[in-house]
């Protein structure tokens, strides 16, 4: 086009074009009501922050509220700071190195430790996939759909959508359905709890050396600070294209998101405590849990609950197998990703297929209580968590890796303290629930 003497292509003047652009922009920015604008701005972030509250979280918090009233609320307050610290460390590592957690573990600790870490992650995440299918089964049983029908169909649908690479198109639908759980906030207020009592319970740590209580404490920690969330948040920061120079804004989002997610589940506990605990109803099945939404939805409580649970479960049941398979293959250097076919990336396909199949099959074992299964998986997560935390904390304190972005002494102290406390909790649980019964002892 820069031929001397020839007529160039810039045949239209720039002024003309600029005028047209301005007109187009005016069309696009038609004014909307300020409420819609604010919702459009804040809404996706809030829903996203809440997305970690999956089937296991709903079951655990419902059960905690129904069985122990407000007396486990303090756990959520106590885990807020550790949650923020850990999420922040992972997000920071993602932004500074541009690498996933599995990547960093392999590069820093070598093949043997990587194998160990990946086994832990695989067990924790496979367990969580089981819990998501349990969530799908429980949700659809509210609509009188047998789990022997719903689970195989859902498993196949998820696998098929994933393998075709079209899962992301339906993801938003499921994500939207999880917004249902904001109804708990309303339900908590409508149930008119004694807010003074709630406030005192939230800041008063209580501890009972009994198996049921301990299980729920471990499960609450396990479902709040999940091993897979550490993996996810780091990858999502890398995936969003946030590097060290853009990290500060991201950090605010991480802190706010963690606090918000914890706040929402506290309302689940408050709502169930104010409705079920008072009435002496324990959560043995999904329809018990659904009753906590009765102040909002009345007879439609189980429909509302079912929708939310289904969305949350389908969301995680799709994302987890894929992300786990990806992380494992990344760590070992196997071919991975949906852009490769089975012959190119056999390990990747086998892994995510196996997780889906195993998740569905375990859920269908006859006679299992779905709610108990959901909580058991969170306990397992809580027990495996200290191992993951040690890896994360060591990496985040590595100056050679992160330079000035490495943990300072104060953050280091808090991070290690979290790992130690969570480790002690796991140890206590194993002692009380597993070891002592073997010797015929119990402290109840």
């Amino acid at each position, binding site marked *: 086009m820069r031929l001397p003497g020839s007529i160039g*292509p810039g045949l239209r003047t720039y002024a003309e074009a600029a005028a047209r652009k301005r007109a187009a922009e005016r069309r696009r920015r038609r004014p909307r009501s300020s409420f819609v604008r604010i919702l459009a701005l804040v809404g996706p972030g809030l829903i996203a922050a809440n997305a970690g509250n999956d089937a296991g979280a709903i079951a655990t918090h419902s059960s905690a509220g129904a069985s122990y009233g407000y007396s486990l609320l303090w756990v959520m307050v106590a885990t807020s700071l550790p949650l923020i610290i850990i999420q922040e460390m992972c997000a920071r590592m993602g932004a500074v190195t541009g690498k996933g957690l599995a*990547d960093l573990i392999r590069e820093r600790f*070598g093949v043997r430790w990587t194998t160990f870490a990946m086994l832990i992650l695989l067990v924790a995440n496979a367990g969580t996939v089981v819990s998501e299918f349990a969530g799908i089964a429980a949700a659809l049983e509210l609509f009188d759909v047998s789990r022997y029908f719903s689970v195989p169909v859902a498993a196949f649908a998820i696998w098929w959508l994933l393998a075709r690479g079209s899962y992301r198109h339906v993801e938003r639908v499921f994500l939207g359905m999880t917004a249902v759980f904001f109804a708990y906030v309303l339900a908590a207020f409508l149930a008119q709890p004694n807010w003074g009592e709630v406030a005192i319970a939230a800041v008063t740590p209580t501890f009972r050396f009994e198996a049921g209580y301990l299980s729920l404490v471990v499960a609450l920690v396990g479902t709040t600070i999940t091993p897979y969330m550490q993996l996810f948040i780091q990858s999502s920061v890398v995936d969003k294209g946030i590097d060290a120079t853009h990290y500060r804004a991201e950090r605010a989002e991480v802190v706010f998101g963690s606090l918000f997610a914890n706040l929402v589940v506290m309302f689940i506990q408050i709502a169930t405590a104010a409705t079920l605990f008072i009435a002496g109803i324990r959560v043995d099945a999904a329809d018990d849990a659904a009753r906590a939404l009765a102040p909002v939805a009345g007879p439609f409580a189980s429909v509302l609950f079912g929708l939310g649970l289904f969305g949350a479960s389908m969301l995680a049941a799709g994302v987890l197998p894929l992300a786990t398979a990806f992380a494992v293959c990344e760590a070992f250097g196997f071919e991975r990703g949906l852009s490769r076919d089975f012959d190119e990336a056999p390990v990747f396909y086998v892994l995510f297929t196996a997780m889906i199949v195993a998740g569905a099959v375990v859920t269908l074992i006859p006679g299992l209580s779905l709610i108990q299964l959901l909580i058991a998986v969170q306990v397992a997560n809580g027990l495996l968590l200290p191992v993951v935390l040690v890896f994360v904390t060591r990496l985040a304190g590595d100056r050679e890796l992160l330079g000035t972005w490495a943990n300072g002494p104060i953050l280091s102290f808090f991070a290690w303290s979290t790992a130690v406390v969570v480790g002690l909790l796991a140890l206590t649980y194993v002692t009380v629930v597993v070891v002592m019964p073997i010797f015929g002892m119990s402290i109840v």
Partner: protein
Amino acid sequence: MGRMLISGVLGKSVLEQSGDVIGRLGDLVARLDDDSRPVVTGIVVRVARKRDLFVSAAEVADFAESGIRLTSSRLDVRPFARRDGEVLLRRDLLDREIVDLTRGRLARVNDLVLGSDGDGWRVVAVDFGANALVNRLGLGWLARKRLTDRQVPWEQVDIFASDAPVRLPGIRHGKLARLHPSDLAHIVDELPYPQGDEVVASLDDARAADAVEEMDPRIQAVLLTSMDQERAADILEEMGDAAAADVLADLDPDRAEELLQKMDAEDAAAVRNLLTYDESSAGGIMTTELVAMSSDVTVAAALEQLRLAEWLPESFDAIYVVNSTADGDFLGVTTLGALVAAGPEAPIGTLAKQSPTATPYEDAREVAQRLVRYRLSAMPVVEVSGTLLGIITIADAVELLLPEEPKLHIPRIFG
């Protein structure tokens, strides 16, 4: 020539001549000068927790599975410290993802092969095979036959300076730059940002532009906003105007404006012009890089102009003829071949053939499909008034029509 795997000696005891164990082999230090094989200059001996000593390679008598024997007992030991120009083979290289040039893609280092030619050890090859991985786990007996061995000579790999916390001026990515831009772009797409930035920084503007054009749009955006903005503008200038407009359209408008102002005025004007069209319209995928000539120019004059041109479009074969009258409307297309065959005095307007055209506001996919159906190499985009605006090339049409590769993105919902 002796050969050994680094995994076979790491962690093994380091013995003085007397046979006393002083510690374990923590790492090997190698000098990276240019593209030649790195020379092992010393070893790092871990004598206690967090206490590392450096022993020069000259004082190492022998590497063996049973242990590393030193030549003397009175060691000239000093605490280990990192130095520019040196890599730690375990810390900076083993288990990292580097470029396997034989395949033009990233691969993880499962082991390193060291070779000795009498006067010292060098890294001679990198093992990417699954066998090496399984062997390091002590499970070699498990599946030796079924798994692959993949040792690639050092000359056929490319490593990253940003994997080490010291300066490594020896790494210049000369071999990487010779890959096809598409392979290069794919590698940068998959690399973490620090390493991706390093690769792009090592390329000259033209090579960088070729590669950036082929990258994933999101990676383009991150790369161009995080690099020096003068350099980003230089790369954008070298890119095709349509590709540059695509990149800028994805950026924050203030950021895009800043880059446009830093660009050469003529290039910036062409890009601004394209930016006015919606991305899904024909105008959004067209390029203004074409040769247009007035219908009254003679064949001889046209050929002369082409010969003198300092710049011609990529895969150039069509000349777009516009009316010599004041309105300058689009008349038709002629080819380079027709030009060569025609008499020198004929006005170029007599060679122009009518061609199917598109308006800039049509749907890009429909226009692309029409282009493919008509088997054209390019389709002129013409304003309703008759003014030639640009062309859509077959390459851009095909790219639009090909199905998108499915990709794994951890959904943004988490975090």
